[in-house]
């Protein structure tokens, strides 16, 4: 299977949308969590923490999208590079849990 030519800029606009809407979602969740905390709701801190987790996840998701895009385009070299970055981020998380 040879590389399917993706239209130029497709990956860029895909990543741009992911980061844009991801930032909106994470900020929105944090804002809700903080607002609940202000009214001393016990749920607030947990919701805010979920928003923070989403922020940490967002760059990893961006790399995952790149990985899928490269694989789909038959660009296995860059697919492997993206997979390596994703692996390193996962290792960092698991080091922290130990």
């Amino acid at each position, binding site marked *: 299977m040879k590389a399917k030519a993706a239209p130029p*800029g497709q*990956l*860029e*606009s895909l*990543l*741009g*949308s992911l*980061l*844009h809407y*991801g*930032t909106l979602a*994470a*900020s929105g969740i*944090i*804002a809700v*969590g*903080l607002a609940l*905390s*202000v009214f*001393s709701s016990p749920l*607030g*801190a947990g919701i*805010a*923490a979920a*928003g*923070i*987790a989403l*922020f*940490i*996840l*967002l*760059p*990893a998701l*961006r*790399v995952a999208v*790149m990985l899928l895009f490269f694989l789909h385009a038959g660009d296995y070299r*860059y697919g492997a*590079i*993206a997979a*390596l*970055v994703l692996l*390193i*981020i*996962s*290792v*960092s*998380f*698991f*080091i*922290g*849990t130990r």
Partner: protein
Amino acid sequence: MQIGIELWLFAVALGTSMLGGVLGMASGIFIVPVLTMFGRIDMHTAVGASLISVIACSCASAAPFLKGLTNIRLAILLETATTSGALCGVFLAGWIPTRYLFLLFAFILLLSAQQMLVRRKDRDDSSSVQRLPLAMTLMYGAGLISALLGIGSGVLKIPAMDTALRLPIKVSSATSNFMIGVTAAAGAAAYFARGEIITSVAAPVALGSVVGAVLGARILMNVPDQRLRLMFVVILGLLAAQMLLAAFGINSIGPRF
């Protein structure tokens, strides 16, 4: 939760991220000194919150740059080095005494001030992506410093792309900003898993950073004028001096070790 402290954190993050956006630097270089020196927040907590701020700034401002300026293939290649460095930094962060982290931070502040004084110039040399090993080494160092100090390390990434890879300024700034999020995430993942990202500190900081980054990008996307740069050199120098004094235990406002 005390609303006063949260508002202060929100305001600090908003201000520093806006400055960062205007100056083309990540917010972390201002956030960590302000939180530790004036907020008397523990260094690891400050670094954790700052990493979230760096991710937020990078993600919030990435979209416009992605239309033509960011070299994403080069970014993912260099990210193997920055995230490996971050992994190493995460290990070291638990071992290095705070006093030495302050010293290192002061050094990075001075380095940033020096870079701000020297105007970045485009080279005519168009042969790009040469000297990749040097760039990868610098990126590894940038990732390490990022995870250790909670900064974006644009201060090391941009010169790596300027001098080692000879990329045009706008491309290296955009690519660096794009990479900063992933680098900080590699560090933040470990801090998060360790429970060192304190929600009550990181949440207002994250929110302030997004607002600040968006405002900063609106104000101007170009290199600021000479007077503004000079002002920031002074601010960076003062923060460096404060952190040096704190590291040697002769301070009036910072933490004591």
